[in-house]
């Protein structure tokens, strides 16, 4: 992207190649970066610093830093995606974790130093792209350079004899090249000496630089799109039990991560009911127990009181409401319990979500809190229960033989103190364990607690799904920019900027002319120009129906 180096200008035919190089080189010395050393005045410092920033070497260093900086973000647990794992890391690395946190390694991609790297990189990018855009516009207006004197010294050259006069030969060549959509230049009336005579210059391949610029600008576009999403978008999670409804409002959501400029009233006012959730698993073969399909049948309304619609949310098939998408992320079981107090009155009846501890067998943990009966339970739900050596295990993730094993506690659950508690955790300080636990129950069974404390019945089993609700206005722009980036990339890789020169001089014998063709391409081009040159030369030669090509005459020269 940044400039070619001075080696190219050392080539013969400086004008032909020199301006080629000059088109794309930055300000003098930008590539090597301040060879003249730091200047005296402060404006000079700034200019020098800017040249440093936009130099290729800096871009390289920043790219490597960007890659290197991403590594800890993939190896260490990150706050944004797995806060529980971060906590675990703290627990197992008491000494190291706080220091890692201080340098932002638990939230790498939102840390200031990572931002500094990519901001610097984009500053360098913009600082390069903008001048190059101007230069491209300029070079698109300037005609190709004049044909060099001695075409044989170019990297690609050929010569042939022609029956036509020099002028006619060059005209024929010009029409061939023009037909190939080269931009042409012919000698002007003011040209003298070798610049007069019969020649044509042709140039093609400006799309390469266009592609290059589109690619780099698209990357900038992606960054801006990500920023838009981060400011105006939001992500939320909701756990929903079969039969339940939820309205898309901040209080209802389990997790809500709004962008900086998002207010609660910006949420799309839809509501959604989970009618049923169906999960199927492979029942036989090597991969028995592997999930086969997940399908959540939902009924939703886009506005309160609006028309009710039904849909199936599956993995890879999210639901789209307004411009918000609802995704099926996870699932689990919510066994239904009924708790009666010491007086036999029903104190609690609800489907209680249990969280899978083992994603393969769906053995799940959960907690039942019945504060008004002064009872709390924690335990394990097993969808297909089997006892192995006295341990309860799950054989299969479908609820073929559901069972729960509970440990009971009686006493004050601490829920009236006002301190918020997680619904999945039971605070047993201030409670006494009930004897006889853990107690195993199959569906429909009741456990009468000793000491006439009450009872708990395992009534039935429902399933729950966890849904992700996301809104990202920067999504489509990011996609568009990404696709543009690829288009630009392909253009810049596979289009070559190249020049062809044709000169004709009268033949020594007097009749016809000797035509020399020369070709030049950018040095870091992907190649293949040899073939194009060969075929173009052949076509030019063929136009004039010359004598057979004499490749032996100059061998060894």
């Amino acid at each position, binding site marked *: 992207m940044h400039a070619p180096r001075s080696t190219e200008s050392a080539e013969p035919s400086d004008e032909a190649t020199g301006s080629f190089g000059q088109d794309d080189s930055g300000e003098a010395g930008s590539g090597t970066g301040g060879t003249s050393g730091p200047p005296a005045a402060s404006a000079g410092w700034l200019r020098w610093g800017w040249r440093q920033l936009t130099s290729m*070497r800096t871009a390289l260093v920043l790219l490597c830093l960007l890659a290197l900086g*991403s590594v800890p973000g*993939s190896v260490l647990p990150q706050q944004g995606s797995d806060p529980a794992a971060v906590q675990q890391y703290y627990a197992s690395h008491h000494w190291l974790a706080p220091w890692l946190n201080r340098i932002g390694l638990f939230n790498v991609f939102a840390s200031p130093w990572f931002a500094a790297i990519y901001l610097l990189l984009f500053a360098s990018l913009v600082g390069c792209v903008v001048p190059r855009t101007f230069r491209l516009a300029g070079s698109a207006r300037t005609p190709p350079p004049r044909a060099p004197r001695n075409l044989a010294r170019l990297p690609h050259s050929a010569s*042939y004899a022609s029956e036509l006069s020099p002028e006619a030969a060059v005209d024929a060549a010009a029409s061939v090249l023009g037909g190939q959509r080269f931009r042409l230049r012919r000698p002007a009336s003011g040209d003298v000496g070798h610049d007069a005579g019969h020649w044509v210059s042709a140039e093609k391949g400006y799309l390469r630089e266009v592609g290059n610029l589109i690619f780099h600008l698209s990357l900038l576009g992606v960054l801006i799109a990500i920023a838009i999403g981060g400011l105006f978008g939001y992500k939320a999670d909701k756990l929903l039990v079969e039969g339940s409804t939820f309205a898309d409002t901040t209080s209802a959501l389990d997790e809500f991560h709004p962008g900086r400029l998002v207010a609660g009233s910006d949420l799309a006012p839809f509501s959604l009911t989970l009618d049923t959730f169906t999960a199927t698993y492979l029942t036989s073969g090597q991969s028995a127990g592997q*999930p086969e399909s997940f399908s959540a049948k939902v009924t939703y309304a886009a506005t309160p009181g609006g028309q009710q619609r039904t849909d199936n949310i599956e993995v*890879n098939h999210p639901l789209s409401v307004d411009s918000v998408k609802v995704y099926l992320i996870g699932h689990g079981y919510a066994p239904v319990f009924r708790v009666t107090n010491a007086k036999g009155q029903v104190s609690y009846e609800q489907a209680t979500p249990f969280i899978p501890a083992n994603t393969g067998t769906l053995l799940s943990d959960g907690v039942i809190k019945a504060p008004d009966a002064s009872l709390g339970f924690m335990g394990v739900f097993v969808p297909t229960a089997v006892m192995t050596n006295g341990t309860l295990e799950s054989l299969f993730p479908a609820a073929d033989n559901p069972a729960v094993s509970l440990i009971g506690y009686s006493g004050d659950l601490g829920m009236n103190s006002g301190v918020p508690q997680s619904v999945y955790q039971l605070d047993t300080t201030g409670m006494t364990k009930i004897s006889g636990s853990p107690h195993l129950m199959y569906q429909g069974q009741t456990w009468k607690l000793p000491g006439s404390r009450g009872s708990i019945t395992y009534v039935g089993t429902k399933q729950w799904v966890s849904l992700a609700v996301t809104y990202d206005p920067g999504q489509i722009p990011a996609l568009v920019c990404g696709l543009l980036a690829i288009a630009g990339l392909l253009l810049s890789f596979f289009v070559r900027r190249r020049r062809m020169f044709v000169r004709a001089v009268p033949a020594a014998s007097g009749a016809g002319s000797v035509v020399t063709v020369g070709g030049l391409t950018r040095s870091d081009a992907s190649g293949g120009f040899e073939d194009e040159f060969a075929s173009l030369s052949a076509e030019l030669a063929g136009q004039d129906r010359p004598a057979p090509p004499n*490749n032996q005459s100059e061998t060894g020269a």
Partner: protein
Amino acid sequence: MAVNLGMAHVSSDFMIVALLVYSLAVLAFAGDYAFGRPRRATASAAAPEAERSTELAAVGAAVGAAVAAGSASAAEVPAGQAVTGGGSADGAAAGGTAQGVPSPRLGAFRSIWAAGPWVRGAVTLSTVGMLAHLVAVVSRGAAVHRAPWGNMYEFITALTCVAAIFFGYIVVRYRAWALGVFVMGAVVLALGLAETIIYTPAGPLVPALQSYWLSIHVTAMTLATGIFFVAAVLGLLYLVAERYRARIAAGKAQAGNGLLDRIPSAAALDKLTYRTAIFGFPIWTFGVIAGAIWADQAWGRYWGWDPVETWAFITWVIYAAYLHARATAGWRGARAHYIQLLGFASLITNMLVVQVFITGMHSYAGVN
């Protein structure tokens, strides 16, 4: 749909056949080194020429022409002339572009035939192996009723197939059979690894992978990885060739007819590696974008810095650094290649280490 066990067996069998045939091909390529026709005997004589030609190669000149200008008979040269000018290996026979109008290239297959029995055998064996490999991959797809790159084993077998086919293309386009030992050798190693340690029997996909995006995202990644695989092998070869060239230039080594004289010149390898890498880079970019689109469909966000996503990004950045380095003269030589190899190392880390050992949403390797 249930797995078609018959097809699964066909796939396994043909995969083993491909592995065996590839191994024989590698032996034949090695045999060409040991016993085949001398090549580049002219390289030693044209050593000073080689220096200038290296410079010209840097500006895209046809080195073959310059070297061939001083070579012996035209008939001998095209047969033995492996890639020297990176793209105009035909230049030797045609008189290159230095003089006269270039005549059409010598037929690729005639060149291979003329290169001697070892090369003939090696290329034939490689082709047979490639066909068997292709049958194995396709039948695996037929067995599982979906694109056959749904887990680590399938991914490796598919990408090695891509690498082998791409190498075949290079052999025909650039007469690069001298690279056979290295590229096909690496393919054999990778395939062997897949067959032994990473093997996963044919089976259906978990729901998260049941999407048409599998055909788009993973296909692109497979293609790109296969191509980067070849570029990495070529890059390693470049470093070897470059070191050898430097040693000859410094007088520390004698150019002769050994192994190192038979591999193409450093300049040619440099160009070829570059062209291969830039072929793979847009495909990798597309694969990352397709993955982002799929992630949005499946997980609700198009980028979440999941470990595999992050390492795909790291790989992309490193290859971008390689492309930038190559545009800077000071970095053009070995330094740029180190970056390219680092990029491939990052790719391999992503594939074999991150996907398997670091938990994230991307753990579909099927390997435990």
